[in-house]
């Protein structure tokens, strides 16, 4: 690639990126002001920090799929904090809440929402159950990395599902990166072997490997994934450098078992929370980060190429509340209408 072309790409990329960040910010701006006003409403509703207040908070979090255990834990800590700081007024409890939530998420660890690159070829393995958006995420991630000036190659490791190879191929064309593929039904480990070889010989920066969706309780399929993981590691020491687990934000408590099992098999390094542009919040990632120490690295916000954004815990936590409270009110209005 010529110097000028690189430069141009970079600028074009930056412009696009800025635009999309703007979009994201705008959306979240709404969320943030919403959050404050919702909390204010809650403050108005409950002038005192009492059991009713905590109960409503608890329900908001439960409805965001945070999960019972984490919610109870958080409530206990909040009650303690409130007592310790002698917060009687709900208006002061707001900061305590978001602080605690982010704290639960981060658990004292530094934020990790970027790809960790290796010195030579960086290999990224994408895993997850069926239908969570692995292939789409790969397309978006490839676009993102290309905009950052990396040369990217894709490996069509989903040789099982009908149309999966074609799907990745279309993404490859859209983004303008090469896709290494074999016939449907071939051994995914062999595809990976091939892909690593050609990635090395062509000297690309990043190889992103697609895999077939598999439910975590299918032993044979998980063994196959383990083999894929092993083959990559054998070809390049330290590979895969990133194993990203795609999690559907609409998934409930089962996501915890997914994360646990995939982590055991492939040493997952990060989560991509997909389909966050819907009404689901995927609150289980709080519990996953807390229990399994797997950070969310990216969020999927739509079907377009630039709809993949780095994860921001603060903003995410605000979103959990603001929209949760919104929904609560709407539902109450609804039932009042009836």
């Amino acid at each position, binding site marked *: 690639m010529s110097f000028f072309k690189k430069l141009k790409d970079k600028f074009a990329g930056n412009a696009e990126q800025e635009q999309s960040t703007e979009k994201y910010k705008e959306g979240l701006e709404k969320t943030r002001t919403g959050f404050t006003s919702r909390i204010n409403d809650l403050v108005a509703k409950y002038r005192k920090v009492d059991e009713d207040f905590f109960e409503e908070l608890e329900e908001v979090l439960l409805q*965001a799929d945070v999960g*019972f255990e984490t919610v109870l834990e958080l409530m206990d800590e909040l009650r303690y904090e409130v007592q310790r700081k002698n917060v009687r007024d709900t208006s002061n409890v707001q900061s305590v809440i978001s602080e605690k939530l982010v704290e639960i998420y981060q658990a004292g660890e530094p934020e990790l929402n970027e790809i960790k690159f290796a010195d030579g070829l960086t290999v990224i393995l994408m895993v997850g159950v069926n*239908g969570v958006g692995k292939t789409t995420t790969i397309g978006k991630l490839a676009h993102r990395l290309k905009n950052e000036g990396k040369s990217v190659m894709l490996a069509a490791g989903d040789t099982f599902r009908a*149309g999966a190879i074609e799907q990745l191929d279309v993404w490859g064309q859209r983004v303008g990166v090469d896709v290494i593929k074999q016939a*449907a039904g071939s051994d995914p480990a062999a595809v990976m072997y091939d892909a690593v070889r050609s990635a090395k010989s062509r000297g690309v920066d990043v190889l992103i490997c697609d895999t077939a969706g598999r439910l975590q309780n299918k032993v044979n399929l998980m063994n196959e994934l383990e083999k894929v993981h092993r083959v990559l590691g054998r070809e390049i020491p330290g590979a895969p450098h990133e194993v990203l687990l795609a999690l559907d934000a*609409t998934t409930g408590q089962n996501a915890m078992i997914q994360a646990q099992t995939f982590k055991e098999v492939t040493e997952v390094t990060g989560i991509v929370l997909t389909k966050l542009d*819907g009404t689901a919040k995927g609150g289980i990632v709080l519990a996953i980060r807390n229990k399994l120490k797997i950070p969310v690295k990216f969020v999927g916000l739509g079907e377009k190429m630039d709809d993949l954004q780095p994860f921001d815990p603060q903003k995410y936590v605000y979103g959990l509340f603001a929209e949760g409270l919104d929904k609560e009110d709407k539902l109450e209005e609804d039932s009042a209408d009836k």
Partner: protein
Amino acid sequence: MAFEGLSERLQGTMTKIKGKGKVSEADVKEMMREVRFALIEADVNLKVVKEFVKKVSERAAGSDVMESLTPGQQVVKIVKDELTELMGGEQSKIEFSTKQPTVIMMVGLQGAGKTTTTGKLAGLLRKKHNRKPLLVAADVYRPAAVQQLETVGKQLTIPVFSKGTDISPVEIARQAIEHAKAEHLDTVIIDTAGRLHIDDALMQELKDIRALKEPDEIFLVVDAMTGQDAVNVAQSFDEAIGITGVVLTKLDGDTRGGAALSIRTVTQKPIKFIGMGEKLDALDVFHPERMASRILGMGDMLSLIEKAQTSVDEEKAKQLEEKFRTSSFTFDDFLEQLAQVKQMGPLDEILKMLPGANKIKGLENAKVDESQMGRVEAIIYSMTTQEKTTPEIINANRKKRIARGSGTSIQDVNRLLKQFEDMKKMMKQMSGMNSKKGKKKMSMPGLDSLFK
């Protein structure tokens, strides 16, 4: 610990209040807390849980529970009954139109499994209802969605109507219905693109397709792993286009599937089918009671029994029983038993259906090693006929030969011989007990020792 069954949770609560002679109202309240917990852990929507718990509390406060010797069990029973009731008593049938063709629309979020389900449904309608289906590729947005349906159609040898991705889905659907009429295909199944329920433009598109010819069925395809949001999704789709039923997919996973209850409660529409695997025949009829058990973490005994009934040859079972009694059970019989167990499907799936199996220590993540079974078979195959019938003659030399022949170690051979001896002993004891007739069919000694 999350994902414990309701029965175990309630038992824990019960031991706390065991000393008391009577169950008080406060105790019922405490039990209801556990019920609430279990349901939320199973992803049942919070609003639905609240309503449900209220209803159950009223029944549980009744005298039959308070005075029962096993109030915990009573509560579990009430909860399960009410859940089953909520999920719809009977299985509902598919509606076919009297005017050809019958039109079925598949709708849902992205990644729920619409395309796969479309294929499965077509196969099922052809097989069980003798229909001639036409699949319609109306997902023009997701890359290669059309190819996916075409591949599925090819695998099933069912025709697929596709017009590429440049024509609007509404037009594709319109032409497909015309095409079906001309070709005398009596069932049109339209695979629509996955969409968010809050995407107004795409929801309008569904309304437009719907307006072409009033579909006889509009199935909402929902991922069984869906959490609290299932209610919003189902409600929005139902309000926008009026669904007639639900297909719950990916139930072959280990999710409790509480979404089923949420959807059913909110829309009052029946769950008609469940997707149980990636193969194209893995679509089953929905059973409310089994789903209730699953949500509560109580195992799926009924499905297990049904599976055993369809795969175990009754005549052979009788012969086997005779052998137990006369202690003439040989390694050949053992092989046969193994084959029957295998026929029931992957062992870990069978295990999961056992109530409480997820609770047994070390079994909660049981990954049954099917290759272990293969090894056992190999060892037996390496025995001579005489050795199989009278294993007592197997001495050190023979063991060495068997191990070499089967590619295992002498320890493996020893272990199998020991297990076989234990089994025989157990059988002797069992047949001495004069067990009831109905139970014989299910007895499969040796199954448990294989897992050790």
